[in-house]
């Protein structure tokens, strides 16, 4: 990890003269979490880090208002991306929200990011002093002593099913390519587990999970593809899709709107599920839609910058539907 961070510093330092801004991760108040950093001067480069605590998908900053665009047309925006984040970039390029040649992409192969909530569930920590990952262990020091946890028990759910740990698009690669943790047959196992249950049980599951939803819209606002968040139909009064009532139907419909508008576009970066303050597995809905895309139309989002998302187009000679 440290060598990766040093390599990152070196490459960013070299690239900085041609960059308007460099977006990366820096340490936060909590050793288990990082915070995004926007670097414009060489003196801030030492704050950049790469570690399994770098969970945020930084690509959203390229498109969400105020979208980061170079003031000087000869300069670019530098950005760090993990495998999942790089697919978001491809999706943004596909839909022409960003131009590939205005970006300088530092791709980082990733073995998974730590979910601090999972850590707290294993061991209730207080005043964490330090945290690091060595091989397959998370080693945390807090007021109660040193704790060693299995990495797989504390990774985010999306990381356990990650098919693309290596960035699919990059200008420079930090570290060595790595292998996926999962076999292709198991990719949709969480979705399949839910599909196997009878309808009444599925209903009870969704009612129980979505009941906690506060319609805080964090999932939508964290999604790099939901660029119309300021005009979202879930909140407009004309046309009025949703009332302000906090009943189950309203919460269901909001999540339906969010998921359906991402059908064929979602690249499973997992931000929606990570940010949810009520820990609702919102990414499951998008995973199901992606499963349908793959099985029905043979399409996986975020891989080919020249592809068109399937629900934005059609094929006249399609059969079977």
């Amino acid at each position, binding site marked *: 990890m440290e060598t990766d961070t040093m390599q990152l510093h070196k490459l960013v330092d070299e690239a900085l003269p041609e960059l308007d801004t460099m977006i990366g991760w820096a340490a936060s108040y909590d050793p288990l979490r990082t915070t995004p950093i926007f670097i414009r001067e060489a003196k801030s480069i030492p704050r950049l880090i790469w570690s399994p605590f770098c969970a945020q998908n930084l690509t959203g900053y390229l498109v969400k208002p105020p979208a980061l665009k170079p003031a000087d047309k000869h300069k670019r925006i530098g950005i760090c991306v993990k495998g999942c984040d790089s697919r978001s970039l491809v999706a943004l390029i596909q839909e022409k929200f960003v131009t590939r040649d205005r970006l300088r992409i530092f791709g980082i192969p990733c073995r998974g990011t730590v979910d601090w909530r999972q850590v707290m569930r294993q061991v209730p920590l207080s005043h964490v002093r330090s945290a690091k990952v060595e091989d397959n262990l998370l080693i945390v020091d807090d007021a109660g002593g040193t704790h060693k946890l299995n990495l797989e028990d504390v990774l985010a759910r999306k990381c356990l099913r990650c098919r693309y740990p290596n960035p699919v698009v990059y200008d420079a690669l930090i570290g060595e390519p790595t292998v996926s943790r999962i076999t292709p047959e198991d990719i949709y196992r969480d979705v399949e587990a839910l599909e196997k249950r009878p309808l009444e049980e599925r209903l009870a599951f969704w009612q129980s999970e979505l009941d906690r939803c506060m319609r805080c819209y964090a999932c939508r606002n964290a999604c790099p593809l939901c660029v119309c968040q300021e005009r979202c139909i879930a909140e407009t009064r004309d046309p009025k899709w949703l009332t*302000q*009532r*906090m009943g189950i139907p309203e919460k269901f419909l909001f999540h339906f709107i969010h998921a359906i508008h991402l059908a064929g576009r979602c690249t499973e970066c997992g931000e929606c599920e990570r940010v949810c*303050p009520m820990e609702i597995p919102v990414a499951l809905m998008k995973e199901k839609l992606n499963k349908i895309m793959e099985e029905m139309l043979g399409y996986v989002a975020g891989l080919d910058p020249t592809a068109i998302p399937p629900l934005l187009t059609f094929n006249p000679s399609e059969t079977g539907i």
Partner: protein
Amino acid sequence: MAGKIFISIDRLTSTLEKLSAKIDLWIPASLQPDKRELTGFVPYHAGIVPILDRQSTLPPKKILLPQVETLLRFEYRKDPRNPLKGSVSLDDKTEVRPALVFGARPCDAKAFLTLDRVFTNGPYVDPYYLERRRNTLFATLVCRQADEACFCSSVGSGPADTEGSDFRVIPVDGGYVVDALTEKAQSLFNSLGDTPTQHQEAQARQVVEKTSQHRVGDLDLAGSTGAFRKRFEEDDYWQEMAAQCLSCGICTHVCPTCYCFTITDEIKNLHGERLRSWDSCMFYQYSLEASGHNPRPSKLNRYRNRVGHKFSYIPEKYDGLIGCCGCGRCIRSCPVSIDIRQIVGRLKENACESE
């Protein structure tokens, strides 16, 4: 004064059960069976397990200010014998029942002081909030579970603070000593527990004293109000401090002192309701005007407003009351780990130099 009672740990559930028969009881509990650490205040029912060893993820704010509240119901009626005369029937009756919130923390109780000022002081009093406030009692824990995100002492409160509480619940060996603090609290806990022994009383006193001396958080807010005004126009500062913000709104939803709301009429055919629901100043739509103009178009404007509101405008308007209770929930729940303490603390940097 009813004085003190002692509730032992193994009698806690039965005591809460008896309490819930006398009054609507709210306790902190897990919001999902397999996620014990995800907690909020829920109405007590048989079988529920109170979680009193940590601050709740969601504050008790919704008990006095529900996320959605019907202000009035209305219905248009037409008289077939007189088609030119229509009528509107209005119904604003709300049923407020006495309630007790057991297991809140000093930060939670202190937060309501800000809401009190906004909703009940001055010429326009909010009758919905006021009615709930008058009918709700708070039994607040003496808190010994501050973590690195807490800073209640910095905002005029503290882990043993009792302002805004009707009972103080003191953890001692084997249980809790409950101390009635206000007149209206007197009779509630009668016959629900034993009189504490001398030893328990002494221990309770010790716990309170020791906890009172513990300073939670080291943020120095002296002069922040002025420092904020000086840096208001400094766009670079707000860019540096809040560029990571996603405008997701989580901070405002988990904050005990955030009270911004919107009022909407939800109509179907000839009847409907006027609802008041939580809104968030972090959303673009919050300050969007009917003309299309938005005085806070950028997330930097909106984040600046959040800091200003809690640490500058409210103290100026309400005799130095800080509009933040130091619970740290916004810091813990923020997906990009923005730390509001850092942003407020650094207001005074450079502001001194420029003098």
